[in-house]
């Protein structure tokens, strides 16, 4: 059973990396979080209830690893450098400075400035497509709190995206 679970976790890695990227705003740190989360998950497989959603369980571990890392963190550079997010946005892709690419960089910057909990809610619901109920379970928060954080995050993001063409 352990090997099956490993394969299932490995299959989730691309989504876990996307989620981690969205909540911490940085590819490299996101990969560290996913790595930590995988190690933690495998050391606590007994806590996973077979039949429940493995992705929800893993998102929760990634989110907790993120909170832990922020608490434990030594000061690096104190202020996120906007240019850094720009640079990251081109990772592995052509350096195409189209308007759309700039818009995506702007979206990432804007997400990075949201309070952490709003970021997690947006990442789970808008990016990962979780239901409100799933997001509430993953974040261990009442569903009303999740909806209110979502509404606040959107109030900030929507004006930014208004008037943009897809």
């Amino acid at each position, binding site marked *: 059973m352990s090997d099956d679970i*490993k394969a299932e*976790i*490995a299959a989730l*890695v*691309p989504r876990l*990396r*996307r989620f981690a*990227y*969205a909540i911490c705003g940085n590819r490299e740190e*996101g*990969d*560290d979080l996913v*790595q*930590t989360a*995988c*190690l933690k998950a*495998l050391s606590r497989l007994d806590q996973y209830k077979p039949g429940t959603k493995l992705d929800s369980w893993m998102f929760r571990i990634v989110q907790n690893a993120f909170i832990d890392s*922020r*608490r*434990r*963190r*030594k*000061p*690096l*550079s*104190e*202020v*996120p450098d906007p240019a850094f997010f720009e640079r990251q946005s081109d990772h*592995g892709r052509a350096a195409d400075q189209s308007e759309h690419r700039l*818009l*995506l960089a702007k*979206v*990432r910057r804007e*997400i990075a*400035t*949201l*309070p*952490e*909990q709003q970021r997690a809610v*947006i*990442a789970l*619901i*808008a*990016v990962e*497509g979780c*239901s*409100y*109920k799933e997001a509430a379970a993953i974040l261990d928060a009442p569903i009303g*709190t999740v*909806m*209110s*954080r*979502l*509404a*606040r995050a*959107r109030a900030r*993001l*929507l004006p930014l*995206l208004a008037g*943009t063409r897809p």
Partner: protein
Amino acid sequence: MTKDWSEQEIAALVDGALDDPQEAERLRRLIARDPDARAYADQIGKSNDLLREAFDAPLDEPVPAAIQAAIYGEPGKVAVLERPGAVRRWVPAALAASVALAVGLSLGVFFGGSDERIIAALGNAPPDGPLHRALETLPSGTISEAGVQPMLSFHDEAGRPCREFDVIGELPDELEFGIACRSAEGRWHVEIVVTAPVTEPGPDGYATASGAAATALESMLDALGAGPAMTPEAEAEQLKNSWSDAK
């Protein structure tokens, strides 16, 4: 036409979060006839698409070797990456401890292994330190890499810009809350720092101090003659001008 819908229920439909099929059907019909509801639904859909696209780079990539090793590797062979961070010491810990005794307030002293660091201590914040930088440059609600989050800004009686802030510490269940005011020379002077247990954040995502800590902060606000909180626009203006424009 009167507005008979809420943004939240339209958003829930677009997010696929409605459990009740009848409710979903009602909202779909509403969107079909109400152009404002339709426009809002489009906006939510479009922003969800953009958000997914903004972070989708990992989806096309193979699993990185380090993560592969974490999943399949032998236990003990993979080390969790810890970034060695430069530790900046703010003031000698012994000095801070004596100040803490003197004022009877807990200061932001953290012990992490052999390192100790102090994010916030009474007096002028060093201009090259994380507290000064966060207060000087970050909009309220943003958390710096060092864990400093300005919470709101206001002017005191003397016309100085002041900011409430919190600091995420090494201790899992504690936050440091403080108030600092900016002198004409451009130094952030920390007026008060208190430690309080972390409470469940309010709907706005902020944790707030409670109990004795809140009382101490409120007394300080009274002592400063704090004016109303700046609007985000007013604060943005201040940040843009490095807090130095005459009001």
